[in-house]
C-alpha cells in the first residue's frame, strides 16, 4: 500500500503537537536563566533546586503513597466487579453494579470531587469519621474511580478468555474459588498489571478530585504544581517534568521491550 504525502504531513502535525511542547520544556529545564525568554546557557541548577525543595518532595511522596494504595484497592475491587459481571450470569444488583461501575468514568471530576467532599463532611457530623480529611479521603476517592477503569479492563480480558478451560477445571472437580485462583487469575495477570498501572497514573495525575477531598494536612504533587504554575512559569517545574518524562519513557520502553520478547518467545 503506497502512502500519500497528505497522510505523512497530517501525522507529522499530530506528532509535533504531542512532542514540541514537551521538547521545549525539557530544553528549558537546562536553561541557566530564570526567564523563559532568555537563554542563559546550559545548567542543571533547577534540578538542584528541585531536589532541595521540601514542599515538592513531601507532596511527591504523598502522591506516590496515595497512588499505590488507591491503585491496589481499585484493582482488587475492579477485579471482583469484572469477574461478577462476566462469570456470574444473572444475579441480584447486577444492573445497579454495572451502572455504578461505569458511571465514574463519565462523571465530570468537579462533580465527583464536590459530592465526595460533602459526603465526608456529612459522615464526620454523623459518625465522627473521617475526623480529618487527608491521605485517607483522597485514597477512597481515587480508589472509587480506579475500580471503574480496572473493571472495564478485567471485563474485556475475561470476555476474551475461553470459558471452556475454566469449565474443564470444574468438570475435573475443582470448585469455583480454586478455579479462580489456579486458572482464571494467572490468565488475568497482564490485565491486572495494566489496570494497576493505569490506576496508579490516573491517581498520580488527579488535581481536581484531590483538591476537593483533601484537608489542610495533605497536598498531593498536582496540587502543589498547580498552585506554583498559577503564579507563573517556575523553572523547577520544568526540571520535575523532565524527570517524569524520562521515567515514563523508561517504563513504556521496558514494557514494549518485554511485550516484543513475549511475542517472539
Amino acid at each position, binding site marked *: 500500500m503506497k502512502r500519500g504525502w497528505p497522510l505523512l504531513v497530517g*501525522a507529522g502535525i499530530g506528532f509535533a503537537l504531542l512532542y514540541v*511542547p514537551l521538547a521545549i520544556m525539557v530544553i528549558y529545564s537546562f536553561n541557566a536563566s530564570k526567564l523563559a525568554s532568555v537563554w542563559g546557557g546550559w545548567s542543571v541548577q533547577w534540578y538542584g533546586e528541585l531536589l532541595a525543595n521540601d514542599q515538592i518532595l513531601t507532596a511527591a511522596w504523598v502522591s506516590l503513597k496515595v497512588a499505590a494504595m488507591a491503585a491496589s484497592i481499585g484493582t482488587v475491587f475492579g477485579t471482583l466487579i469484572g469477574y461478577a459481571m462476566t462469570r456470574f450470569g444473572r444475579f441480584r444488583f447486577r444492573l445497579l453494579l454495572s451502572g455504578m461501575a461505569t458511571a465514574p468514568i463519565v462523571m465530570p471530576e468537579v*462533580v465527583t470531587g464536590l459530592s465526595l467532599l*460533602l459526603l465526608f463532611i456529612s459522615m464526620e457530623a454523623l459518625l465522627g469519621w473521617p475526623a480529618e480529611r487527608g491521605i485517607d479521603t483522597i485514597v477512597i476517592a481515587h480508589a472509587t474511580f480506579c475500580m471503574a477503569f480496572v473493571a472495564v479492563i478485567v471485563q474485556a480480558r475475561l470476555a476474551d478468555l475461553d470459558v471452556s478451560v475454566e469449565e474443564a477445571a470444574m468438570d475435573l472437580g475443582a470448585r469455583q474459588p480454586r478455579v479462580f485462583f489456579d486458572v482464571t487469575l494467572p490468565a488475568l495477570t497482564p490485565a491486572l498489571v495494566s489496570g494497576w498501572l493505569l490506576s496508579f497514573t490516573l491517581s498520580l495525575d488527579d488535581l481536581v478530585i484531590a483538591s476537593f477531598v483533601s484537608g489542610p494536612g495533605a497536598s498531593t504533587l498536582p496540587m502543589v504544581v498547580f498552585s506554583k504554575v498559577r503564579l507563573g512559569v517556575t523553572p523547577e517545574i520544568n526540571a520535575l517534568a523532565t524527570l*517524569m518524562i524520562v521515567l515514563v519513557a523508561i517504563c513504556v520502553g521496558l514494557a*514494549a521491550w518485554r511485550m516484543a520478547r513475549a511475542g517472539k518467545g
Partner: protein
Amino acid sequence: MTWLWRRGRALVVAAPVLWLGLFFLMPFLVVLRVSFAEAVIARPPFSELLDWADGLLTVTLNLGNYTFLVEDDLYIDAYLNSIRVAFVSTLICLVIAYPMALLIARSKYRNLLLMLVILPFWTSFLLRMYALIGLMSPTGFINSALALAGIGPITMMQTDFAVYAGIVTGYLPLMILPLYSTLEKLDESLLEAAHDLGAKPWKAFLTVTLPLSAPGILAGSLLVFIPAVGEFVIPALLGGPDQLMIGKVLWTEFFNNRDWPLASAVAIAMLALLVAPIMFVRNALGAKE
C-alpha cells in the same frame, strides 16, 4: 461447602456494591440535599433542611439556588460554551488524529509509533498543560522566536485558541487509540478491490475506509468530548478570566465564593443536563453494536 460457596459469591458482589453505594451513590444524595440548602456563614457553610423543634419536624426546601441558575445568564452561557468548546475540540482532534491513526495502522513501525502516542498520555496531564504555557505565554518560546524575526508579540494565552490547543494536545491520544484499533482491523483487500475497480485513493478513502471506521470515530469522540465538557484545569490555566466553562464555574462557586449550595445546584444541573444524556447516548450506541 456449597453453602460456603454461595456465601463467597454473595461476598464478591456485596463488597463492590457496598463500596460504590457508599462512595459513589450516597454522595449524590448529599449533593442533592445541600443544593436545597441556603448558604450561611458557618462550618459547614450551609443551612440544615430538617429542623426538629417542639416535637415537630419541619423541612425547608430552598429552591433559590435553582431559580438563580436559570435567571443569571452566567450559568446558561457557561453550559452552552462548554458544549461548544468540547464539540469543536473533538472535531479538531478527529481531523488531526485520523491521519495519525491511519499512518500507524499501515506502518511497518506501528509498535514504535503506538509507543510514541502512549508516552505523552502517561505523562502528567498538568505538566503537559504547563508545557503549553511555556510555548504560548507572552514571553514564551513562540513569541521569543517571533521577536527574533521582528514580529509580534501575539496574544495566545487566555484566549479560546489556548483552550482549544490545550484540549486537543491533552486528549489527542484518547482519539488516536480507538481509531487505530478499528483501522488496524480493516481488511486491506477491500481497498485493493476499490483500486482494481478504478476508484481513486481519495474516493476509496471516502467510500470504504471512512464508513468502516465509524465505530472508532464514535468511541474516540466520546472519550474526548466527555472529559472536555467538564474540564477545569485547561480553562483555569490557559483560558482567560472571562472564559466560561461549567467545570470552572462550579470550582469558583465552591472555592472562591464558598457558596456550597449553589455549587451543589450546579453539580446537579451538570448531572441532569450533561451526564444523563451522555450515558443515554453511550448505552444506545453500546446496544447497537
